[in-house]
């Protein structure tokens, strides 16, 4: 991947997708609102003093859930659903002829959506701080940078997992139901609804080997200033990316060989 590639292909693609996304601002605002579940969870935690058992103060917990909301906002992936529709409608064939990997198109779509989503997520955060002024804090620049990187890595992991599922579209018509199945462990184990630290010991013994805690719990802990193992987090994120990427590549090669265009 050279700089020419980025300048000539990826950047224009991003620009096109960004203007495309700006067209549907309200839609993206609604997506942002639909991610408010962490705040409801926070309400259950603090309202019942459940956080005393895990030794996290109310303020730290509210920061954690705010950060979980943020990380989730910037790591939402829907490539399976787009790809499934495109492959059912026969739109994949023209994409395959283009001199760029079709998944760059989806990748640019996701990045553009995140940029569009950013102001809405900020508004929701401001509303949150109005209701909880005591939990306002300003993370220092290094932390901000590190957590932005880890959020991006989390996004990459999820993008790769979904791309792998999306490749199954070459064999089956409804790959999105597999994605819905995979979403369940992501929802409950990633730390979106409860911080991983609160999980019972029999789960904590193996969960750190799976990719799930690195999707939301690790970046959110990093950003909110809760204790977390930074080295292990980054190493595991990178390991999972290195593990998933070849699988995606293999499946994509096998899938495109099997692919027959509409009507043939």
């Amino acid at each position: 991947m050279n700089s020419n590639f980025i300048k000539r292909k990826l950047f224009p693609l991003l620009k096109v997708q960004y203007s495309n996304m700006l067209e549907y601002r309200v839609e993206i605002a609604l997506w942002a609102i639909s991610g408010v579940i962490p705040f409801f969870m926070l309400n259950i935690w603090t309202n019942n003093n459940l956080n005393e058992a895990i030794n996290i103060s109310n303020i730290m917990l509210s920061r954690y859930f705010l950060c979980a909301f943020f990380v989730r906002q910037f790591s939402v992936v829907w490539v399976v659903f787009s790809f499934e529709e495109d492959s059912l409608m026969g739109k994949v064939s023209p994409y395959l002829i283009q001199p760029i990997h079709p998944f760059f198109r989806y990748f640019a779509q996701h990045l553009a959506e995140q940029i569009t989503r950013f102001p809405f997520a900020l508004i929701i955060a401001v509303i949150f701080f109005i209701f909880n002024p005591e939990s306002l804090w300003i993370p220092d620049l290094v932390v901000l940078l590190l957590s932005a990187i880890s959020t991006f890595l989390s996004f990459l992991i999820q993008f790769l997992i979904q791309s792998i599922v999306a490749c199954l579209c070459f064999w089956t018509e409804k790959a999105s139901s597999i994605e819905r199945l995979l979403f369940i462990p992501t929802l409950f184990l990633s730390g979106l609804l409860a911080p991983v630290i609160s999980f019972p010991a029999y789960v904590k013994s193996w969960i750190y080997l799976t990719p799930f805690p690195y999707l939301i719990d690790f970046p959110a802990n990093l950003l909110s200033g809760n204790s977390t193992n930074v080295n292990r987090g980054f190493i595991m994120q990178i390991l999972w990316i290195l593990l998933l990427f070849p699988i995606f590549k293999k499946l994509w090669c096998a899938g495109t060989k099997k692919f027959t265009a509409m009507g043939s």
Partner: protein
Amino acid sequence: MNLRKYFKVYTKFLHTSFASELEYQTNIIIDLITAILSLIGSIFLLSIFFQDNGIIGGWEFEQALIIQGIYTILNGVTNTWFNPNLTEIVKHIREGTLDFVLLKPIDSQFFISLKKINPSGFLEIMLGIFLLLYCININEINLNLRFLTLCLFTIICSICILYSLWFFISTTTIWFVKTWNATEVLRSFLYIGRFPLDSFSLSLKIFFSIFIPIAFITTIPSEVFLGLYQLWKILLEASVAIIFLFTSRKFWLFALKFYSSASS
């Protein structure tokens, strides 16, 4: 309104949509696994909440399981009927095929709400019923006719409220064209119906009783299950259900006045 005609049409709907859905048999199995995993996940989450506290919001763990059971049944109903049909409204309006629906010599709301069915939702309903039976066992509830009719009655009221909410949001498509994600917002808000309403703070409790009546949808049926019901609450739920159904109907007829078909 000719009931027999509608009944006959409905059996035909059932027949065609079953036939088309059964084409994807593995899909149904994957959906079943998804439903089971998501139930396990939410019980896991509940067990985290209860691991150091015996009571949350006045509910014990065994009692909170009833809410899970009722939520699972209602979610099954949503997946069987509301989700496949009402997301279709968006498609009808974007592609202009609502014209064909309106021209049919049958009530448009009936057609739009019941045309399709998703059999995998049935499995979820069964799952919910099994969980409820288990709860009846562990909570030592004695069954009698009065109890069963009240339960059935409140659950039917909940289904009516849920249907009206979904239908109401889908109807707004006539003005906004793309409300597919507005239903997603509703879905994420309904998610908190898995937890006892009393575990939230007062402001959220009020919000979820008035704007999105989750209080009526899962909490009142659960109270009936435990025998804690008060008659006025049940009557209130019934009247809310009737008001919701009536308004959603009126709203649909009102919205249709603003529908200008495609290309006009």
